[in-house]
């Protein structure tokens, strides 16, 4: 009985993906006529090549390859930026006597309250004013403007015993030394967990990239989804094989990372709590 429920639940989540996968193996005409079927065709190579190297749109620059690269840059850039900035700020807040510490704390943690979606238009205007449209900086940096990672590292640093910093000081380690030689190595697991969560989060961004990137060579895979839906509506023969393959390519990297680094991912997710 327990197994029946679990199997049904797993199928509920998995079957749609399998159907997408199936349509990438068959010729487009089969899919247009019948939709997903119970056969495995031999077109997977063709569809993969079309997805990776053929472009749709005007400029011919938004190939799967290009979008994959942009997604990688966004995912990794976002995760690294967030972790580096967050760790530095958390270190300053936890380990230093600062006169305006409370003020800085509130300034930083108020950002947890409002998601990007509610200030999306003014953010766009500011990015425009600063000349950041269609740049990687414009794509990544505004997304970093919240304190999730800072909060997470602050909680973690606070749980590290006081004796450690005392011992380090007695041994003559300065603040920079202590950070690089002790705190960073000690936080390895936390950094890994944060990296996975932030990479997935960055990779999956949609609204901000949709607004800030209009040049086709700046599209990410997830940003490109909109164009795929429009292609399938188009007048010419809808290329289901290519479109569904691109959707799969957009899904796979973050999913594989979550599956392979499951324990870190779950730890990061449930311990950050916010």
């Amino acid at each position, binding site marked *: 009985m327990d197994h029946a429920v679990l199997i049904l639940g797993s199928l509920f989540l998995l079957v749609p993906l399998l159907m997408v996968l199936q349509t990438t193996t068959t010729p487009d005409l089969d899919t247009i006529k019948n*939709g997903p079927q119970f056969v495995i065709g031999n077109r997977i190579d063709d569809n993969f090549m079309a997805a990776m190297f053929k472009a749709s749109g005007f400029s011919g620059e938004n190939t799967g390859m290009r979008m994959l690269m942009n997604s990688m840059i966004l995912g990794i850039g976002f995760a690294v930026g967030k972790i580096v900035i967050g760790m530095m700020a958390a270190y300053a807040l936890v380990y230093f006597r600062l006169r305006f510490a409370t003020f800085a704390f509130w300034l930083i943690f108020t950002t947890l309250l409002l998601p990007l979606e509610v200030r999306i238009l*003014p953010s766009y205007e500011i990015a425009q004013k600063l000349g950041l449209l269609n740049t990687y900086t414009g794509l990544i940096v505004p997304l970093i403007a919240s304190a999730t990672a800072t909060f997470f590292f602050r909680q973690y640093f606070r749980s590290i015993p006081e004796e450690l910093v005392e011992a380090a000081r007695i041994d003559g380690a300065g603040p920079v030394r202590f950070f690089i030689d002790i705190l960073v190595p000690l936080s390895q697991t936390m950094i890994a967990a944060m990296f996975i969560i932030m990479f997935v989060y960055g990779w*999956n961004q949609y609204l901000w990239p949709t*607004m800030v990137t209009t040049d086709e060579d700046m599209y990410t895979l997830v940003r490109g989804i909109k164009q795929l839906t429009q292609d399938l509506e188009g007048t010419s023969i809808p290329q289901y094989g290519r479109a569904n393959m691109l959707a799969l390519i957009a*899904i796979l990297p973050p999913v594989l990372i979550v*599956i392979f680094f499951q324990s870190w991912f779950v730890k990061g997710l449930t311990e950050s709590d916010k």
Partner: protein
Amino acid sequence: MKRAGFTTRWLPMLLLLPQLAVIIVFFYWPAAQAVQSSFYLEDPFGFGSTFVGLDNYTYLAQSTEYAKIARFTLVFTILVTFFSLALALLLAVKADKVIRGAKSYRTLLMWVYAVAPPVAGFIGLLMFNQSWGPLTELAKSFGWDFTLGVNATDTAAAMVLVSVWKQVPVNFIFFLSGLQSIPKSVREAALIDCASAIRRFWDVTFPLLAPTGFFLLIINITYALFDTFGIVDTLVKGEPGNNPMTLVYKVYVDGFRGNDLGGSSAQSVVLMVLVLALTVVQFRLVERRIHYT
């Protein structure tokens, strides 16, 4: 702040600088601008703007369309939150019980976490394709003539289903980790005291999971309000028409497409207040949560 901290003056400022710079430029500045432009009426051709006081807000309050969208968002949020929590709780309880294949089930039930909302919407379009979509067929076999994008109720149903599909894994992960942190001694005591598994669940497990549930409730409401943007956008194929939409989607449509900056900003401010209210509730619940465990 640690008791045994460092006293260097310049270093902490330097460390805080990038974080503060980013949030001031890309958080406080836009947030302030949203509040400011909500009091102005922007000329649609870009020739300056006029101060109109609370006009944008009174317009929203009187708009029947906005009221309709707000009502839809409320129903949508309730449905998505309820179904994704209930389904995830059921699956987590079962996954916590089984021994064989426990790890495989866990993987099979959490991978969807990493699927982007618009991609989930894209898969939804495939499932609800008018001529052969497997779910359209299924609905037809029950006599339900499902037309995504044409019939507003059908589009709403698809939005709810896809949003639930996408959200079950997050809730599952949290519920499972909540269940696994219930001490073995408590479970064993319950086992001795009560033979009925159903009563054990409602009398022991469920109350112990309540803190996780409260926390998830807020997370899910926020998800349904904001993160479903990509799902809504792909399912209506960027063409709202007479399709239902959520409040966040309306902000985007009015501001970005309709160039009604003032109206859109007023809507943003309404949402900000809503999120702030939710957060206050959340903090109070988090406090209670500490008392619980």
